C-alpha cells in the first residue's frame, strides 16, 4: 500500500526553543482539521510530549515493546480522548537510546505510515544519536528557532545536516516572536532570521503566556479553539502544512492595542 504519509521531523539544534510545544499543538490542529496524525517522541532522554498532551497517565506500552514485538502497535498507541484523530506513540525508557538504531526508527515510522496521514517526530536537541535516528526516518522537516543569535546559529547547523541527508522540504517556524521588541530592534527581526537561514517560512508563533499555562495543564492551546494569539499561530501553521494559503502575520501590526489602531486610523483620516 503506497500511502503518501507525510513524515515530518521537528527539530532545532538548540534546546528549549519550542519543538515539543509545536509538535503537540500541530498534532491537535491537524487532527482537528481531519488528518489522522501520529506524534512520536524521539527524545528518549528527556521526553515530555506525553506530558504536554496530558496523556502521561494513559501510557501502557511504548515504542520499545513494539520493536521488541512484545506488543502490537495499536496497543502502544495512545489516542487522544477529545481528538481521536491524534495518537501518541510513547518513547521507551531512556536506556532505549543506547541500542536504538536508525533502522529501528525507520521501522517504527513505516508501521505508523500504514495508518496515519501525518507522522510528527519530536526531535531531541543537539545533533547526536537521537537526532541522527530521527533524521533517518524522516522525509521532510520543520526547523524551529527563536529570534536569538544562538538559536539561529544552531538552526543553521541543523539545516546543513538536513540538506546533506536529502530531507525535503525543510521549512522554518520562528517561535516566541515579540513584536514590540522586534519593532525597537532589541530582537532579531523576521528578515534577519530568514536572511541567514534561507528557508521558506512556514509560520511565526507569538510569545504568549497562555503557552505556559496550557503546558502545565497538559492541554495544548489549540485544543480549545484558537482564541489565544499563539494558538491561532499554531492552527495557521497546520493549515499551511495542508496546503492552504494563509498570509503570515506581520509582527509590526501585532501587539498594538485596538485603541492604538483606532487612533492611527483616525490620524490618517483626518490629516
Amino acid at each position, binding site marked *: 500500500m503506497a500511502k503518501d504519509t507525510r513524515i515530518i521531523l521537528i527539530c532545532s539544534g538548540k534546546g528549549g526553543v519550542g519543538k515539543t510545544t509545536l509538535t503537540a499543538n500541530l498534532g491537535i490542529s491537524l487532527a482537528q482539521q481531519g488528518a489522522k496524525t501520529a506524534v512520536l517522541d524521539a527524545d528518549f532522554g528527556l521526553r515530555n510530549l506525553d506530558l504536554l498532551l496530558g496523556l502521561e497517565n494513559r501510557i501502557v506500552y511504548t515504542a520499545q515493546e513494539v520493536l521488541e514485538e512484545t506488543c502490537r502497535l495499536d496497543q502502544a498507541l495512545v489516542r487522544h480522548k477529545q481528538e481521536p484523530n491524534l495518537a501518541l506513540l510513547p518513547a521507551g525508557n531512556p536506556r532505549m537510546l543506547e541500542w536504538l538504531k536508525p533502522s529501528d526508527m525507520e521501522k517504527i515510522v513505516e508501521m505508523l505510515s500504514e495508518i496515519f496521514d501525518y507522522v510528527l517526530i519530536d526531535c531531541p536537541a543537539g545533533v547526536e544519536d537521537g537526532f541522527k535516528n530521527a533524521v533517518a526516518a524522516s522525509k521532510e522537516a520543520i526547523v524551529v528557532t527563536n529570534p536569538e543569535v544562538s538559536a539561529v*546559529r544552531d538552526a*543553521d547547523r541543523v*539545516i*546543513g545536516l538536513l540538506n546533506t541527508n536529502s530531507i525535503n522540504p525543510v521549512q522554518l517556524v520562528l517561535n516566541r516572536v515579540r513584536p514590540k521588541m522586534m519593532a525597537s530592534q532589541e530582537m532579531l527581526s523576521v528578515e534577519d532570521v530568514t536572511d541567514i537561514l534561507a528557508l521558506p517560512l512556514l509560520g511565526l508563533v507569538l510569545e504568549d503566556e497562555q503557552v505556559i499555562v496550557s503546558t502545565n495543564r497538559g492541554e495544548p492551546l489549540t485544543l480549545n479553539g484558537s482564541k489565544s494569539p499563539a494558538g491561532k499561530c499554531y492552527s495557521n501553521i497546520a493549515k499551511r502544512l495542508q496546503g492552504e494559503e494563509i498570509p503570515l502575520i506581520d509582527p509590526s501590526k501585532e501587539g498594538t492595542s485596538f485603541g492604538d489602531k483606532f487612533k492611527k486610523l483616525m490620524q490618517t483620516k483626518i490629516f
Partner: protein
Amino acid sequence: MVKLIKLSSIANQDWREVLIEKIEDLDIEDIELDFNDLLLNCDDIKEINSLCCKSRKRIINIKSTVPETIVSAKSLFFKSELYLKSNLKKNIHSGSKRKHNSEEITFHQGTVRSGENIHCQGHLFLLGDVNPGGIVRANGDVMIWGRLLGIAHAGLSGNNTAKISALQLMPVQLRIANKVARGPQQKPEPGLAEQAKITSGLIVISPLTSYK
C-alpha cells in the same frame, strides 16, 4: 594516535582489497581515510565503515578530492573534508612557500552553514554565503560570490599576499597568513564588494575595484 590510510583509483585495484590489506594487521585503532580521487556513494562508505568495524578500526576523518564522496561521507555524519588534487603532496614534502600561490582554484557552490568548514590547497572560489559559524580556509585567496558572515582564512600556510574578497564582507573574524582581525562592527553598504589584504602588517579592508 591516528593512522592515515590512502586509497585511490590510480592503482586500478578494487579499493576493498586495498583497504582490507592496509588495515588488517594495523595495531592502531583510529584511522583517517584519504580517498583521493575515488568517487564513492553512501553505500560504498557504509561498506567501508563496516569493513573497518570488522577489523575494529574507527574512522576519525575522511578526506577526498571528489565533492560527491565528501557529501556522501557527511551525510553519514563522518567528519570529512575536501581538498584539492596534486598540491597536497607537494606542500607537505617541499614545504616551499612559492607552491602556496598555486593557480589552481577550487570551486564550491552552496552556502557554508554553521559548523561546516571548507579547506582547500589553492585558491577557493565560493558561490554562496558563509554563514556565522561557518569557516572557509585556503592556502591561496578566498573569493566569495556571496556574503561572508563567518570566518575566512586565506594564505593558510603563511602566504601574506593572500586576499579575501566577498560581495559583502562582514565576517566574525578574518585571518590572512598569521594575522587575525575581528570583523567590522558596522554593516557595510550593500552592493559594495570588498577585499581584505595585509597592508603594512595589518589586515585592511577596502572596496574591491579589481582583482589583482
